[in-house]
């Protein structure tokens, strides 16, 4: 407990205290300054887009990895975790190499809002896949077969039988992806150019405030970011539990 306090809890408490150093007014002014609002808005919107894409793509990938069989499936399966193992700055460079000005296929989205979404998609890829996979593995095939024998189309089977079973896992994975996306920093660094009012995400805004010595402003936005991550983590957890109960 002492270790946890020295390393994590006391420093986080310091951020909260610092953000109110100039009183409630200065806290409010810091988080409602146009640049802070723009950065927070960009982060929230991009994170939501990323969660939706992850929910679709992650479920699809998990499905293909569990239900399909093709040569190299095992390798693809282990590569899913690569974004967790790869340093974020390398992820940034990686995406810039393919989607930047020197792209070999001529797709240049670097320094645009698209690049923010792209970076977040990269680092959050494993969450939904890894949450859905075990559930899909344990799912009883008999229910699906029964539905099919009763004349349900494969799409109906997926929508009425498979999807309700997967939903809690999709939501839980989406929640983790959201929390990660909101705070993400490293993968944005080389790719988005940190343009205020355009591609500057909240974490990057905090970073530039620290660099320009506006510590209170940085702390205030940090507190908002912390709260957003915690609340949404709790919300997704609650949603996932609700979906689980519904299914039982």
């Amino acid at each position, binding site marked *: 407990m002492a270790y946890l306090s020295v390393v994590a809890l006391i420093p986080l408490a310091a951020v909260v205290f610092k953000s109110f150093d100039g009183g409630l007014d200065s806290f409010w002014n810091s988080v409602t300054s146009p640049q802070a609002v723009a950065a927070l808005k960009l982060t929230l919107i991009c994170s939501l887009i990323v969660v939706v894409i992850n929910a679709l793509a992650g479920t699809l990938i998990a*499905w293909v990895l569990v239900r399909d069989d093709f040569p190299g499936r095992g390798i693809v399966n282990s590569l899913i975790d690569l974004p967790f*193992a790869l340093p974020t700055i390398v992820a940034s460079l*990686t*995406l810039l190499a393919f989607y930047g000005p020197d792209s070999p296929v001529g797709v240049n989205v670097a320094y645009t809002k698209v690049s923010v979404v792209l970076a977040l998609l990269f680092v959050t*890829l494993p969450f939904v896949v890894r949450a859905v996979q075990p559930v899909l593995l344990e799912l009883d095939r008999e229910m699906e077969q029964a539905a099919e024998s009763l004349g349900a189309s494969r799409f109906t089977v997926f929508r009425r039988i498979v999807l309700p079973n997967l939903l809690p896992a999709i939501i839980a994975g989406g929640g983790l992806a959201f929390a990660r996306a909101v705070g993400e920093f490293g993968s944005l660094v080389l790719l988005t150019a940190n343009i205020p009012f355009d591609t500057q995400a909240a974490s990057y805004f905090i970073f530039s405030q620290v660099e320009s010595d506006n*510590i209170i402003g940085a*702390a205030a936005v940090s507190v908002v970011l912390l709260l957003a991550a915690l609340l949404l983590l709790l919300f997704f957890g609650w949603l996932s539990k609700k979906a689980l109960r519904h299914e039982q």
Partner: protein
Amino acid sequence: MSSRGSRYLLRFLALGYLALLLGIPVALVFVNAFQDGIAAAWDAVTTPEAQHAFYLTMVMVAVAVPLNTIFGVLCALAIVRQRFRGRALLNVLVDLPFAVSPVVVGLALLLVYGRRDGWVGGWLAEQGIQVIFSVPGMILATMFVSLPFVVREVIPVLREIGTEQEQAAATLGAGSLQTFFRITLPAIRWGVAYGVVLTTARALGEFGAVSVVSGKLSGQTETATLFVENRFQRFDETGAYAASVVLALLALVTLLAMNVIKPKEAQ
């Protein structure tokens, strides 16, 4: 659409998404690193600055991983095996580093250990200890972000193995230390190993938190990830890509270790 047709379509979509997001970009980093030849890439990662950056990253790993492993096992034991006030709270607090942006981690350390802004930084500076903009602060940042992994991996294993064997050992007269080292630790070893691999990967790759507290002095407080950024911003693309390749190879080794350990953990 025929059954086979839709299966191929789904497979094509899933693999296409992975290739565009993951496979091709990562492969391209390897290509770009060696575009001026292997010798140029080798020279770029063996300059004194590069060597120092990788050395410093190893220092981060060497300090943060053992400390977090010991803490992780103890914390997991406390959460699973003991009853005390605030146990549930501890369980939640341990996950906090996952929900906190790395930049906020850096700022948080600055506000406690910084010489001017920190709560204890001024006092530490009087004792001649500099934490922020030097190696101790970077180690703290690395410890912070990689804190939960071992705890999270060990808790389910501890729950699974139960306490029967431990109780049996205790009735046969084993002390608590003896029970831990002869019964508990062997039973949770693959869980610990998996947590250590994840902790190491995170410690190797940490960028945001370290970036805030390091001061980025090339050859002094620059880790491998900061080195990549520095090289890229100075238009030394070969240097940035070559150092990235080294880090990417380490990531692949991590993946390999995860794949070796995971099945053993499941047994």
